């Protein structure tokens, strides 16, 4: 199948990537941009490992087509650190033991970053709600929730975190139903 050249704006850099119509964002990031920090666990929308942010909102890279996000603002795990330090969420995941094998970690970190931009002081239940679409087989989630709490505290103390994105997000962002509809807990009760 023939490929189309698209420009993906990832971590504030433009990547020209040749994609087939059916190529997912996760594939384009990994193979096209060389950003292998975004993981693919199930490729079916069930594990959350592939979570990245599009216009500030967490989406599943394996259920999003590369073609649909041309020109949108994409953030991945590789783009979080800056100013000679890790993002507080990254730091907290390491310090609190929120990462063991680490394969789920980029997805959890991105999901948590998005949460903390809209809710600076989430309760433990709100954190669980936010991460309910991500699966972790190693940690039992407790230390992941600890990590998000710690990061929230640190961010509050620092007094800010990229409010422009917060505003963009609040004011509507995308209308794409799939992007908005991703918050399906992967483990809905049987």
């Amino acid at each position, binding site marked *: 199948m023939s490929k189309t050249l698209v420009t993906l704006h990832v971590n504030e850099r433009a990547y020209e990537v040749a994609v087939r119509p059916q190529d997912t964002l996760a594939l384009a990031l990994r193979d096209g941009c060389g950003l292998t*920090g975004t993981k693919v666990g199930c490729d079916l929308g069930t594990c959350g490992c592939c979570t990245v942010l599009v216009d500030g909102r967490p989406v599943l890279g394996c259920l999003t087509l590369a073609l649909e996000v041309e020109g949108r603002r994409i953030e991945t795990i590789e783009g979080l650190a800056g100013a000679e330090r890790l993002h507080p969420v990254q730091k907290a995941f*390491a310090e609190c033991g929120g990462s*063991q*094998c680490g394969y789920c970690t980029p997805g959890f970190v991105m999901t948590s970053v998005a949460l903390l931009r809209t809710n600076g002081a989430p309760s433990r239940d709100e954190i669980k709600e936010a991460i309910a679409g991500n699966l972790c*087989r190693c940690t039992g989630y407790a230390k992941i929730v600890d990590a998000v709490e710690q990061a929230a505290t640190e961010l509050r103390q620092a007094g800010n975190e990229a409010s422009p994105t917060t505003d963009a997000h609040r004011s509507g962002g995308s209308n794409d139903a799939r992007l908005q509809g991703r918050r399906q807990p992967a483990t809905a009760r049987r």
Partner: protein
Amino acid sequence: MTQDFKVVGSRPPLVDSWKKVTGQAVYGDDVRFPNTLICRLLRSTQPHARILRIDTSRAAAMPGVRAVVTGADAPARFGVLPISQDEEAMATDKVRYIGDIVAAVAADDEAAAAAAVDAIEVVYEKLPEYFTTAEGLDPVEEPIHAWTVDGSNVQKRVDQHFGDMDGALEQAAVKPRAFFDFIGVGHAFTEPHAVTAVPEADGRLSLYTPTQVPHYVHRALAKVLDMPLHRVRVFRTAVGGGFGGKSDPFPHEMCACLLARRTQQPVRLTFDLEEIFLTNRGRHPGTYDVQVAFDEHGRMLGLDAAAIIDGGAFASFGVVTTYYNGVLSQGPYKIPNFRYSGRRVYTNKAPCGAMRGHGAVNARYAIESVIDMAAEELRIDPIELRLRNVLEPYSKTTNEFRITSNGIRECLERVRDETGWQGKKGKLPLGKGIGVACGFFISGSALPIHKTRTPQSTVHLQIDIYGGITAHSQGAEIGQGSDTVIAIAVAEVLGVPLDFVRVRSEDSDTAPLDLGAYSSRGCFMIGNAAREAALVIRDKLARAAERLTGHAAGDFDFRDAEVFARSDASVRVSYFEALTEALADNGALIAKGWYQSPRMGGTFKGAGAGLAPAYSFSACIAEVDVDLETGLVKCTAMALAHDCGRALNRLAVEGQIEGCMHMGLGQALLEEMRYDRGRITNPNLLDYKILGPFETPDMKVIIVESEDKEGPFGGKEAGEGPLICVLPALGNALYDAVGYRSRQLPVRPERVFEHLRKLRRAEAGMSKTWGATGR
């Protein structure tokens, strides 16, 4: 051994977690080489069939296809255990399960590889199919493998008898017996299998693979590829979860290597999630028939058990599993009389193998359930009954396991006291319940899989003028924290901050041999090897300090990057001064430490199975809330006390224990591999559910430190043992809640519901009444 440690016992982040939180860690599918081909596999669509013909000619001629290989290209058999080498890179004469590899293709891209796989023609002749253990116990028309017992599908039989079991049963005041049925579960690690094979310019072959057992992969590759061991290199990538699911050398690893050698190009192969379920290697399904005998004082007289486990199509670790289902029942209680019969039966389903708590989990559920039944009959509190029977520290089991440090008593007492057990047990309203169970596990298998006198773990250290310490080891970091154990041991001994140490554990070209991440051996064996190596370095630095100060080397201690005299604090040099002196006229400091288990155990057949240099102990209390309308069981709280000897890294130990609770509860409540005539029907994470954040209860972790005399700084395992007591604690809590003893796992809400309906009919006779819940 009361010492004040600096690093040991602290809560450092895992040393490899920084690259994991930044996306820098390189997992199987993240390995990128130029000019790489993509591999896809043709898998059997038949559960059991003879291969009459494979025609690859059309596939091989397709555009973009570089090579196609079949079983004929590498017929040598392999397997993780030398005694049961029954696997092939690809099926040669017949296929044995749906998913068995038949052919492999390397092509320029994924699409070309997939198209070529579709173009391969295979003609099968169907053979009789066997999906249950029952039909394989006696001779069958077409045994799944040629070397089964007497023409049946039985792969392994274990029969053990210690003492006089029949006598014990005769004497017993109570002797509850029950029959249990366990459905298979899978590891559900998040990273699918993904490997890259690279033909090196000098004719060697490298395999990049997320494996728990690089050394066993190395051996199997050499055998199947018919290459000398030194021409093969295994590079362990970051491993996205193992839990035993990456502890076999795999056929797909062989396929990628064969194709790389054939094409002289790197070959990458990544499974999709369905293939993970298709090829399984998870916990064995099986049945467990168990009877326990107690006298009227609640002293355990004996245990009589029979396990029949469903191995699937290949042996994998199955011989060990067959033993473990019996021998790991020998603790944590003193069991004077013991009888066990185990059978592992091949079936035409995906192979089962090792999974966290290997061989001990289902058996433990059964045993702790009948112990609970005995407690009820004897009218003794279940914790009290257990306390009356636990093994003493530094004792021996009936089958001659050498028990060293043992904190089981403290584990039980602490979960009891820290959950308010006394106020809850038997006192909760209908629908709410509390249950207890114990666990027991090996802290590293004392016997290596291959008979050899090479140490089980070796660690090399190297320090140059920069001061950083490089530790080389083949210990397989899989997220459990083994690299961090090395760093902690070295930093502790040399009195330097943790970030002075970097661990290189990936590459078989530089890493001294280690047997890998299985049998919970890492902490004990690698930890000891690292500590030994660091002591050698410490000695060199102390002698350098002696040359600098004139003070006796033996009096120096190491702390905060300083070397100082214990008897005179004014005599001190910095770590760097000592190092510079030690390097003078000498060059980089190097040292080696190794670990080998002491000789131990009995002389009877099978005496080696389950031997370990130390054992871990645990106790768990679960609290449940049963929905009386639907039968749905929710675990509301869990407390688990685990004796890990000493927590070298408290953060990691807590993480392991929490992960064990999560995984154990998953098996108890939700997880099951469902098969329909050999075909798995739920090969994805929507239909095979693992617990999410809301289904995981509040978890209380209690670390018990019995300080093992032989463990590194007193440490023992914490990665697997804690899982074992989780399931029976849940089962016993369910019984306490509604009087329903689940003899099958996972607990099915419909069965609980059925039970509740019967209860409702017999309402009048119950001590717990519907009235208690306001109905």
